[in-house]
């Protein structure tokens, strides 16, 4: 308890309070962002920056990341660090492969969720009941899950028609929806390449054309998680277990039960992320997740352990990833965009008194701007690194505003508050 109260005192000291930001400010920021994007597109001639195809690709890439980030948020809000997300995603991809080729995409999603829950349960038993260090348990799951998935895939897929020892047969894709009429109108406007108008049309068209129902489901789950955790008594109790479990216990909350629920939900969401990945790829493949669980964790931190933030983080990562894969001209334009963004960050930081940070951001911004104008393209070897560089920069510059759940990762034993 002493540890808890001392950290509490530190945080209670008169630090700047974050101002409450009104919804219309977010809207203005979004408009400004599209304006800048549009200007860069015209200047660099990189139409792909705001094309509907890029937005579609970004959404598809962002969904598994957002699910992993959501999974991390559920666990950490309940006070358990879940570094085993990657492993749970792998379990999800296998579950999706197993059920998907036999009974279709929705069965794939259900089985992915189920196997993710199994992974979550394992983590919950280890960390909550037995008090194992959260990191150790998570790493163990990351080692265990790919081995288990490979073992099972050899067992079930090796002799299936169209399958192999390391891949499942084909999974049918989930249905995709297009808003009729609107998509075509926006397509026409997008094709004109007008400043700002076409960019907005391109982004909107990407959001209403050929959208997988899985993407819609993922968006609903993010909203639902926000509602459950921040608008219901259940959510308040769950979050109290991550902030001050001993205090929660003294008020009659069954902390173990809530931690179990949080970690199991976490496993379920990670499994869903894996399932979405497998279904949208059309099959399970060994090693398919490729570190997406860890990137999801970064998206969660970027999003300040909140649903809106982590969705933004996942989208940002999906967007840079889509650009990097679709064409190197757009990545070159990204340099300029990054330079502008960094200068904006520098101004904001300067105004709020962080002079050192502001100077670093400004210097980096100028550097990126110079790089853009001094070169014609980004070397292919660096294009693939673009998403990581962007994430790293954003994380580095935004970290002083972040506040993790206070007791996430700390051991908690029943009755320790007495």
């Amino acid at each position: 308890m002493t540890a808890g109260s001392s950290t509490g005192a530190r945080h209670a000291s008169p630090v700047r309070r974050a101002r409450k930001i009104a919804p219309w400010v977010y809207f203005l920021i979004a408009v400004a962002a599209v304006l800048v994007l549009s200007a860069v597109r015209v200047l660099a001639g990189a139409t792909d920056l705001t094309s509907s195809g890029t937005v579609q690709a970004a959404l598809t890439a962002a969904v598994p990341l957002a699910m992993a980030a959501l999974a991390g948020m559920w666990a950490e809000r309940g006070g358990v660090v879940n570094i085993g997300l990657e492993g749970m995603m792998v379990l999800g991809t296998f579950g999706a492969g197993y059920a998907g080729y036999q009974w279709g995409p929705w069965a794939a999603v259900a089985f992915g969720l189920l196997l993710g829950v199994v992974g979550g349960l394992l983590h919950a038993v280890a960390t909550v009941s037995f008090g194992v260090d959260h990191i150790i348990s998570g790493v163990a799951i990351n080692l265990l899950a790919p081995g288990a998935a490979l073992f099972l895939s050899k067992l079930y897929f090796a002799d299936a028609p169209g399958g192999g020892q390391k891949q499942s047969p084909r999974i049918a894709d989930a249905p995709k929806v297009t808003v009729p009429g609107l998509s075509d109108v926006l397509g026409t406007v997008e094709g004109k390449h007008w400043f700002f108008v076409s960019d907005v049309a391109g982004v909107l068209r990407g959001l209403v054309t050929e959208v997988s129902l899985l993407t819609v489901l993922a968006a609903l789950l993010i909203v639902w998680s926000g509602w459950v955790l921040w608008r219901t008594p259940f959510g308040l109790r769950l979050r109290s277990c991550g902030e001050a479990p001993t205090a929660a216990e003294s008020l009659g909350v069954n902390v173990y039960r809530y931690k179990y629920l949080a970690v199991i939900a976490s496993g379920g969401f990670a499994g869903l992320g894996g399932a979405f990945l497998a279904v949208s790829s059309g099959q399970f493949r060994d090693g398919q997740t490729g570190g997406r669980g860890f990137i999801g964790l970064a998206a969660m931190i970027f999003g300040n352990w909140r649903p809106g933030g982590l969705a933004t983080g996942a989208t940002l990562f999906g967007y840079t990833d889509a650009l990097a894969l679709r064409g190197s001209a757009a990545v070159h334009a990204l340099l300029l965009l990054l330079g502008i963004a960094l200068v904006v960050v520098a101004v904001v930081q300067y105004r709020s008194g962080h002079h050192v940070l502001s100077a670093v951001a400004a210097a980096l911004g100028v550097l990126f701007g110079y790089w853009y104008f001094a070169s014609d393209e980004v070397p292919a070897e660096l294009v693939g690194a673009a998403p990581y560089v962007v994430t790293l920069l954003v994380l580095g510059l935004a970290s002083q505003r972040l506040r993790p759940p206070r007791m996430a990762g700390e051991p908690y034993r029943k009755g320790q508050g007495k």
Partner: protein
Amino acid sequence: MRRMRGLRLAAGALALGLGLTACGGSDSGTGSGGSTQASTPASELKIGLAYDIGGRGDQSFNDSAARGLDKAKSEFGVDIKELEAAAGETDAQKEDRLRQLAEGGYTTVIAVGYAYATALAKVAPDYAEVKFALIDSTDAKGANIENLVFAEQEGSFLVGVAAALKSTTGKLGFVGGVNTPLIQKFEVGFTAGAKAAKPDATVEVKYLTQPPDFTGFNDPAKGETAANGMFDAGVDVVYAAAGGSGNGVFKAAKAKGKLGIGVDSDQYNLPALAEVKDVIMTSMIKKVDTAVYDFIVSVKDGKFTAGEKVYDLKAGGVDYSTSGGKVDDIKAQIDDYKAKISSGEIKVSSTK
């Protein structure tokens, strides 16, 4: 006390995890080898084969090697042992795999893929009586190593010709799995072929990952995104030299009504790609199966020769496929180039 128990459990879980990973990574050791050895005549060939990442069932490169092995097995009834590689493994793990085969009495060992070069260079000198084949690389040489290499640029040249002739926009795409010298041979040949058939054709090139990240051969989602980007930019034929990621390229082509070109195997006829096969206009076939089979036959007949053996277009090591009938109308033109390359009239460079 509680803390201690927790730690012990964690250690247990970790050990279990490592154990299972190890099981998954390779088929269980030489346990079964002992019993078969006793029941087969001593003159019988024992063949070990170490796969590259993806392994049997990758619908591509490794499957081709597996077909050669299966053919040899069904014809001569040889005793075989197959071991699989895992993504992101080290040279030491590859070395262990080759040693495991050599120690297990497998006197003929085939290492599938250039990734084995470093490991084989270390292992081969220790087993002078074992005959090794290394596919796709000449980086490991020795008195008991035969290097089986292919002229991928020549086969890619032919599908480049086909792509340029079939394209209506004159814009072609190349999706490479990982940016390695080997995959660059495919790109160079493809571009050369396209330009030969249509001098104003352009080729958009995208490698999914950069080494040492080899996930680009195994990520259909990335293949799909890259191909979609090309199709949106006006490309109408994409050559997928990306192993398992090629599935994503064909999926994108199918959704957008464009064409794709397969690699290594005749991908039109692969069961796993049955649903997208109508967009696969042709495939650059690399006859790893022939090379593997020939190698086994040469060892069986006592005609093993160390050193480089090139499977080029002339030797029938690479070719293009006609399954599906999508290139029937331009077959004469492609075969014309084929004859010119075979006769040496056209030389296809393997580097940029």
